């Protein structure tokens, strides 16, 4: 039996109960999520932790909170989510045998009970029309659909043996985001934020940018904090218009008026302060309004690309309408990393059908579109991060919720397949220029160095300084974790 793991305790000397609740809970909650460090830091400056916290006098819980388990390789993570399920054999995983047997029936189709169920949707084997060639010093083969990312292969660990458990978008997305097929669990970004807190006083620690065509299936549960407090949930940031909900004051309300309001609010609140421990909670509310006020300046500034150079804008494809939408989000992601945001998720693909990577009808048409929209911006992001010295401390992850079948569907499309597909990581702590794992001759099932979604999660946490077995949260009678009882760090991938 495994020895009882030491429970992760954010904050010093604070007790966690089921549902994570004590009367002082707010301290670490405020300290954990949204710009939490700011609150606890401000509060600590105000000196009231000394009064209400018995543990570790003189030490700020804000500093204790967010202590990783070991020195992190990556300070921040950008998760590029290719919603819909990109096709591995058309992008990252060349399969000569598949091309050779184009049109033939797939052997052993019945061996996989799940595939068998979908048999009536499957045609014969379908090779890829796209050519592959070797790139970089590492000579990793990449499809012609990704000419720009291909230039960055030496930064990437490419996981050709990734696999997941669901054939459906909804549960597949949930698994890639929360580790579970069922709704109700905290997302990866929530776990990271819970574990590490934020480095920015004025911005959310965990930001999600959805596609301009819509959100992913299931929507907000994909960035929910599940059974954790709301402060750990992802905040939707829009790349155009008002970046954050209710960021803009009502019509006619000026910053000057608002600062009068906040001064009055603070005055009234302080008159009714309490000597009890709830006072820190009350003070946190005061601080949260000050934070909101500052966010009104800092959030628009974070998404304002006006001062980016022409070269940078070109690097991300902002000059080309085709790449502009996704490019903006990638560039904003870099700006957020610079400003200390911990976890940023960017979706490519929104809504349904061919607005996503879900190429049931025509892989060539669908993937040509989505590749063209994302390839240059992603490469731009990697190059830009590198040239600014940020790549070594920023982990970039590229993944969809699953891959696609080697067999055809409706003639030119491919169906969902979680049995084997490709994902990659680059930057913070990753040894680039290597392929890890392989699928079978047809690119259907992962057969070598298989990497489950749980392993991806364990590795991401590891690179950010967190042990996936120790990062737990007590809920429903037991210690819950992102990887449940599974997951192994992909050692081969580490620098």
């Amino acid at each position, binding site marked *: 039996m495994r020895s009882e793991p030491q429970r992760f305790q954010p904050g010093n000397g604070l007790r966690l109960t089921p549902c994570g609740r004590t009367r002082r809970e707010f301290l670490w909650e405020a300290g954990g999520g949204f710009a939490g460090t700011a609150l606890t830091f401000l509060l600590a400056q105000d000196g009231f932790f000394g009064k209400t916290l018995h543990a570790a006098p003189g030490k700020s819980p804000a500093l204790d909170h967010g202590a990783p388990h070991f020195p992190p390789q990556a300070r921040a993570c950008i998760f590029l989510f290719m919603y819909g399920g990109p096709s591995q054999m058309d992008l990252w995983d060349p399969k000569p045998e598949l091309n050779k047997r184009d049109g033939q029936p797939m052997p052993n189709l019945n061996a996989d009970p799940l595939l068998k169920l979908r048999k009536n949707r499957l045609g014969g084997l379908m090779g890829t029309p796209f050519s592959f060639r070797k790139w970089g010093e590492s000579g990793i083969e990449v499809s012609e659909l990704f000419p720009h990312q291909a230039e960055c292969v030496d930064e990437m660990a490419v996981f050709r043996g990734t696999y997941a458990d669901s054939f459906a978008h909804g549960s597949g997305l949930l698994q890639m985001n929360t580790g579970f097929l069922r709704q109700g669990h905290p997302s990866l970004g929530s776990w990271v934020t819970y574990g590490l807190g934020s480095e920015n006083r004025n911005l959310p620690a965990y930001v999600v940018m959805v596609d301009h065509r819509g959100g992913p299936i299931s929507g907000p549960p994909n960035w929910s904090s599940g059974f954790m407090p709301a402060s750990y949930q992802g905040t939707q940031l829009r790349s155009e218009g008002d970046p954050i909900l209710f960021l803009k004051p009502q019509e006619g309300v000026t910053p000057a008026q608002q600062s*009068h309001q906040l001064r009055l609010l603070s005055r009234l609140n302080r008159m009714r302060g309490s000597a*009890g421990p*709830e006072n820190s909670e009350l003070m946190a509310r005061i601080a949260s309004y000050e934070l909101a006020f500052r966010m009104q300046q800092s959030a628009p500034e974070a998404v304002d690309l006006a001062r980016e150079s022409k070269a940078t804008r070109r690097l991300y494809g902002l000059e080309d309408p085709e790449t502009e939408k996704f490019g903006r989000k990638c560039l904003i992601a870099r700006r957020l990393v610079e400003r200390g945001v911990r976890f940023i998720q960017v979706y490519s693909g929104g809504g349904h059908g061919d607005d996503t990577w879900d190429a049931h009808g025509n892989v060539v048409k669908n993937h040509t579109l989505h590749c063209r929209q994302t390839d240059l911006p992603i490469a731009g992001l990697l190059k830009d991060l590198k040239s600014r010295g940020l790549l070594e401390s920023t982990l970039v992850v590229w993944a969809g919720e699953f891959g696609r079948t080697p067999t055809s569907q409706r003639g030119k499309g491919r169906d969902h397949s979680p049995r084997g597909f490709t994902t990659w990581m680059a930057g913070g702590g990753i040894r680039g220029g290597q392929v890890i794992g392989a699928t079978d001759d047809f690119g259907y099932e992962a057969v070598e160095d298989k990497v489950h979604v749980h392993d991806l999660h364990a590795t991401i946490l590891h690179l950010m300084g967190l042990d996936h077995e120790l990062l737990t949260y007590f809920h429903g009678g037991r210690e819950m974790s992102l990887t449940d009882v599974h997951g192994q760090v992909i050692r081969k991938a580490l620098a």
Partner: protein
Amino acid sequence: MIKRGLATAGIAAACGLVYASEPEPRFDAQVRPLLNQYCLQCHGENLQMGDLDLRTVSSMEKGGSQGPALVKGKAAESLLYQRVADHSMPQGEEKLEPEEIRLLAAWIDAGAPSDPLPVQADLEPAAVHLPSHWSFRPIRKPPVPSVRNRQWVQNPVDAFILSRLEENGIRPAAPADPGTLVRRLALVLTGLPPAWQESSRLPEGPGDPAYTRLVDELLGAPQYGERWARHWLDVVRYAESNGYERDGTKPHAWRYRDYVIDAFNRDKPFDRFLTEQLAGDEIEGTDAESQIATTFLRLGTWDDEPAEERQDRYEQLDDVLGTASSTFLGLTLRCARCHDHKFEPFSQEDYYRSLAFFEPLKRPKNLLKPRADLDRMVGTPEELERYRVATMNLEIQMENLQAEKKKLSRKIFDRLLSEGNSNRDLSWAHHAETVMAFRTPEERRTDEQKSLIRKFEERMDREILAAATAEEAERLRRWERELAQAKAEAPAEPPRAYVWYEDTPYPAATRVLLRGDPATPGDEVHPLVPTILGRPDLLSRLGPIEPTLDTSGRRRWLARWMTHPENPLVARVMANRIWQWVFGEGLVATENDFGVAGDAPSHPRLLDYLASEFIDSGWSVKHLIRLLAGSSTFAQSSAWNPQAAGVDDNNRLHWRWQPRRLEAEAVRDSMLAVSGSLNHSMHGPSMFPRIPDSVLAGQSMPGLNWGEPDPEQNLRRSIYIFVKRSLAVPELELLDSPDTTSSCEQRRVSTTGPQALTFLNGDFAHEQARRLARRVMRATGEERDNQVRGAFRMGLSRGPSPEELEAALDFLRVQEAQIRQDLTGTETIPVIRERALQSFCLTLLNTNEFFYLN
């Protein structure tokens, strides 16, 4: 048995547990299949030949026209045995095999034991040990302790609290001032601040009869049910959609919400409340209300496109079992799904035995619309039958009338066409094909003919009527009238509800799933409560599970066990929740976990006193609330006392009132109330507040299944907001509205920047501030002094202190100047003054005091 004993031996020993053994042969596993195979076609649900129904033991004992079919313990005297033994039954070729007949005889001789056994009759009473964990031991009402400061004691609650305080040398806080106390009482009991009344005298405190009257008045207000139902909805993971990809709507789920509101308002005895939710379809006197209550079982998430069907089925059962065990028993039974519980004395077998209570629930599946959910008509069996018969009769009547009408029409039609020299102009129909179409019997018409008929039918009807003789026309008209009348008198359709039901008393076997994996089923198990709680004397008093005619009867048995006064958990768990909903935190601070790993109660004797009181009062929730709200403990101020804090810094001993943030719903409702906009209408389908487009953009189909916002409806209380699993109303979500995927026993409290933005810049808060400002002006006039006083009274139920008044007036002056300076237009002074007042009101609505229950 032995295997199981070993598996949990460590835990069993720790808790002083003795296992029971199971007798044979077993009814559901062995006898029922025989009956099913040989007997029930003629003596079952559809047919009861000879008035005999063999579906349940009791119906066998009752027997048919030849007398009882079963004499317990005496196979030879039982007709059931005699008939199969002499092969006179079943009629037809297929007879029972000799070993099957022997089995039946053995079962009858063994006393015809009904369903698997909760009864562990063989157990030696001497061998029974009480479990050592406090919450598994029986509830005994403790004597009320004596205290020194007897005037402080309003009722026994105070005696228990004070005796602990005195033991620890702590003095309770002074009473809260009347204004604070009344606000507290109103918010706790109704979730709304007290209405502002200029002249009313405030009751002094619990000793004042006016205070008792106020408590009764608030408990009698319909808003009480709306407030307390919301607490319950948290615990039962209430939502109106299924979650997952499509997040489909659960039709009629709101009826359950209304059921809960009414149950609290009418103070439905909690044992009945529990029973209806678990088994309202199985109990005596089942009716629409009790069936609506079982929506409880179906409130969880479910996937309409599961990756794996069997896995999905067990996810759903786990959801029900998990919710029922945390809600009613305060147990984390769910953790024993894949292996024995790591902290609690529950084996994996315990889990699957408990699961077996729910196994008979059908996997909802509508073959026509595989992704749709099931909603059903509800009512007493008589009501449903009456409706069925009435609908059928109506159909027959309509068919007959239609047939008569058709026959006569046809006759006139034939006559019409044969009379070549008719004075009616039928040239339009004289096209040979049209005539042919009308002549062809309906079932033989081709598609073209059908379309011709559709085209000319109406006209033809008119012609026919015109060509009818007076007598024929009268007959046609009479039939028309009769048809119309029959339609008008059609019985009203009974209400529909969203329920998960059983449709056979013979459920499939439940098996232990090794590692929780449905692909690896292990031994079969039977419904039984967790072994540690299976007190043999109690189980034998409850007797066996009796199926009903079309359900297994398992859930109603479970409800009987739960609500038995000897059940150690149910009354404690609920009494603790009532305490929590009044004081903010339970005496057991882990309200959903009364297990070994849960927190110990701060006042175990008080908890047992309350639990006993609860049962003795007929499980009256209002009775307990009266006790708590009427105590000096409740009426304390929140003043901080360093000396007391030195002993008990967490206030676990209740030496003062513990302030806490209001729940999201109470904040929203309070804003609506103070702005004078709250729409008090109750019940009915949920409403859909306006959600900013940028929030909707996060969905894959923005706004799907989110109804049209309605300005009037949207001013109703928050409990009437549609609870959609994939889309939350920002005002509620940012204030930690509950996660609906599993039971939420305690709201979280987080404080964030976006929260502040929402109430500083959001449309909702601004609208309420605007309305509050208007309301203040209407009530107090133009004077700033009076306006500030009025805003304080309306917003915070109290007048301002002198320094608050000064701060407010300062603000209004500065803000007015600022607004004037910021404006470029030609706004008039009254407009500017009003805007400044709005700005003040918004600030007031954002104060800590407004958000906190003090």
